[in-house]
């Protein structure tokens, strides 16, 4: 595969497998008993989850004073992790909606999995604003309902926009995912021999009959949902960036934030999807469905978004100088050379320098290299959120109110727990639902579409 002719359009599924072979491969993990490796993996993730649960229990029993959040830095790890996980979630919708609108066939093999990751990442992200309020059982106040205080929520606050954006994003992603699953449930229903599974699949397939009169509306609804999800995915991280940009804090109050955050979200989301897919295609023998070409295309998107993020870093500095606001200039010099310089340079080297290696075709097509770079990207993107959140808060206008933020063990416990939750859900997903869309992949196999016609 070292010589690839980019002028030719290759089939996105290698080796023209027969249709029944595709569904056999995709459904197999659901029918075989989990092996030893699966149990090892899930015991690790469950341990991580348990650490998170214990840390949360400690946080609620003793109060949020267990965290490192202090007076200037009220937004510590919880907000850093929230933005990080919401960002991870962005790749899924981008792959399933935006690439669908662009008619990128290679997305068909990875869309289902990426959508699943979106849902799990948004679920994980949702925990953090809830725990950050300190009393998550009172979160109902976030929604506008007629209550005994006769008070309404503040509709002009970016924090409330966030509530609506994230909950809408989760709901729409979930619907998108389920709509994609309906024909697959029907296929599994007709294939399974297990009576219990048959009942479950029948219920979730809603009685799908693969009828073309249904496919016609189904494709229309898919198009409409993709049309809605595309502005939605852009709006979610835009609104997350408003949480920062609408304030007056130096380093936050910049107009570049929405596009910068969206690019960063896609960047980290693709890195996470690529990391996990590398394992999935190997473990489940799907190397001809999730091909090296697909991974290479994802690497190219990472390189592009990485350069967008790098441009944003540079432009922030330029505008701080060009804008002539002293507090702003100080904030950026402080970022690069102040007490958090270590975090800043980790961020720059991971996010800006490491994806530049993708210029080399050899690196783009070598699994260990691309895996390592994607890991660096995720580390870098986590530090980006840390740098943005913490440096601006720790040193704002008044030197008398400066401080230094250092996270506690409980903070790290919750961060580990969030990874535990995300990967536990992913592992369970691989064993309960088809990780690749059966119907969508069948549609892009060689010879699956009629040869005549004007398409």
């Amino acid at each position, binding site marked *: 595969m070292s010589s690839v002719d980019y002028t030719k359009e290759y089939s996105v599924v290698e080796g023209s497998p027969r249709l029944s072979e595709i569904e056999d491969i995709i459904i197999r993990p659901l029918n075989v008993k989990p092996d030893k490796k699966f149990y090892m993996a899930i015991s690790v993730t469950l341990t991580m989850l348990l650490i998170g649960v214990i840390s949360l229990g400690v946080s609620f029993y003793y109060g949020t004073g267990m965290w490192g959040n202090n007076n200037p830095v009220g937004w510590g790890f919880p907000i850093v992790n929230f933005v990080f996980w919401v960002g991870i979630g962005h790749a899924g919708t981008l792959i399933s909606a935006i690439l669908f609108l662009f008619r990128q066939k290679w997305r068909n093999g990875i869309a289902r999995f990426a959508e699943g990751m979106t849902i799990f990442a948004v679920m994980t992200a949702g925990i953090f604003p809830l725990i950050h309020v300190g009393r998550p059982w009172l979160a109902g106040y976030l929604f506008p309902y007629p209550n005994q205080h006769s008070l309404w929520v*503040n509709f*002009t606050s970016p924090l409330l926009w966030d509530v609506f954006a994230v909950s809408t994003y989760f709901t729409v992603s979930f619907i998108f995912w389920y709509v994609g699953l309906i024909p697959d449930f029907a*296929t599994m229903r*007709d294939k399974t021999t297990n009576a219990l599974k048959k009942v479950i699949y029948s219920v979730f397939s809603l009685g799908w009959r693969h009828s073309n009169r249904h496919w*016609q*509306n189904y494709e229309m609804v898919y198009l409409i949902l993709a049309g809605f999800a595309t502005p939605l995915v852009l709006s979610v991280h835009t609104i997350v960036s408003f949480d920062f940009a609408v304030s007056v804090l130096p380093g936050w109050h910049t107009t570049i934030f929405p596009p910068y955050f969206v690019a960063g979200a896609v960047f980290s989301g693709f890195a996470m999807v690529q990391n996990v897919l590398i394992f999935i295609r190997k473990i489940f023998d799907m190397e001809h469905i999730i091909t090296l070409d697909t991974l290479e295309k994802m690497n190219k998107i990472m390189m592009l978004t990485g350069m967008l993020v790098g441009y944003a870093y540079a432009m922030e500095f330029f505008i701080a100088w060009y804008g002539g606001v002293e507090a702003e200039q100080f904030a950026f010099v402080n970022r690069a050379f102040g007490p958090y310089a270590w975090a800043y340079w980790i961020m720059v080297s991971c996010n800006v320098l490491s994806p530049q290696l993708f210029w080399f075709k050899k690196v783009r097509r070598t699994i260990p290299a691309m895996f390592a770079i994607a890991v660096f990207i995720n580390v870098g993107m986590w530090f980006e959120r840390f740098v943005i959140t913490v440096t601006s808060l720790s040193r704002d206008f008044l030197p008398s109110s400066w401080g230094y933020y250092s996270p506690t063990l409980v903070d790290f416990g919750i961060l580990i727990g969030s990874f535990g939750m995300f990967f536990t859900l992913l592992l369970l997903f691989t064993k309960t639902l088809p990780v690749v869309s059966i119907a969508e992949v069948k549609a892009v196999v060689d010879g699956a579409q009629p040869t005549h016609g004007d398409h």
Partner: protein
Amino acid sequence: MSERILYSYTGLFDTPDEIIGAASKTAEAGYTKFDVNTPYPVHGMDDAMKLPPSKLGYASLVFGLSGTIAAILLIVITTVVDYPNIIGGKPFFSLPAFIPIMFEITVLSASIATVVTMIIVFFKFPNNAHPMHDTDYMKAVSSSRYGVSIQADDKIFSEDQVKDFLNSIGAKDISPIYYDDEEINFKHNVLDLKFIGGLFLLAIIVSGTTYFALNKLMYMTPFNWMMEQDKAIVQSTSNFFEDGTNMRVPVEATIARNTKPYKFKNDPEGAAKFLVNPVPGNEKNLELGKKKFNIYCSPCHDNYGKGESRLRGQFPNPPSLHSQKLRDWSDGRIYHVIMEGQNVMPSYSSQINETERWAIINYVRALQRSLNAKESDLQ
């Protein structure tokens, strides 16, 4: 077997090209109630079957616009009409800040409603009782083959003709699909005891859980910790301090900010003897003294110090500041009166600071001189 009701006749094909051809031939033969079943959407099939374009977009439009209108009504009713708050000095109706939530609600309502409309109205789902389910035909089309099904309730349907027709277009595995007797004869019984019992149980569980969560759980540890905090509440008994009060007395000899202890309390003679006016009587200080005199002193002493009170008898008039006695008083003696008051005049020490007191005294001296000028002033 012959008693079973026929639903449709089906035939299977192996390639997408064949099924496209078969679909267009079926449509051309005049059948309207027929269907094509494929494991994935085949391009060009809608034209071959002569299907009108999907009308689902209208549902999206209607529900999306309803969402937008509902969102703006919600926001306007809550933040403009019911409980207007000034936020950031913006008008109550500040549309730009409403747009994000209007957008989100539009997308949310349109997405949910479009999918629900498709499933329930367009597909009549969920429907697991359809005769096609669990047939070999269904199993084939759900995996790797392509099928045509011509329904028995079509106007020009006749069993033999359809069989011949399917043969003529090259279909394999031609087979009839019958309604399932059990499914047709199944009757729902809403009054079934089990069903009603289940509903009843569900109602008890839901209401019980809600009651527990709202009325009991929220008053348990640690959920009640917002109400029980280890802090001192003023005017309540303290378990921490020995004297049992939460309010603390300042350390002895503590003084308030910007104050100096007054040495000559109850000692006018001492004040008259030892206090010296440190504020020079220049123009700036006289202006200050005039301003403060007019604010604090003139209501009773009047603007010229003659004691013609503006309070019209509601408070006794003070004596004139122009008497010989006052003209002979030292500055320190007058200062003592401002600090401690005299007769019915209260202390002004908290209203007027030290510099202002001396400035007022300078101004009073100027007033006195204005009515009792010395010979030397004329020069």
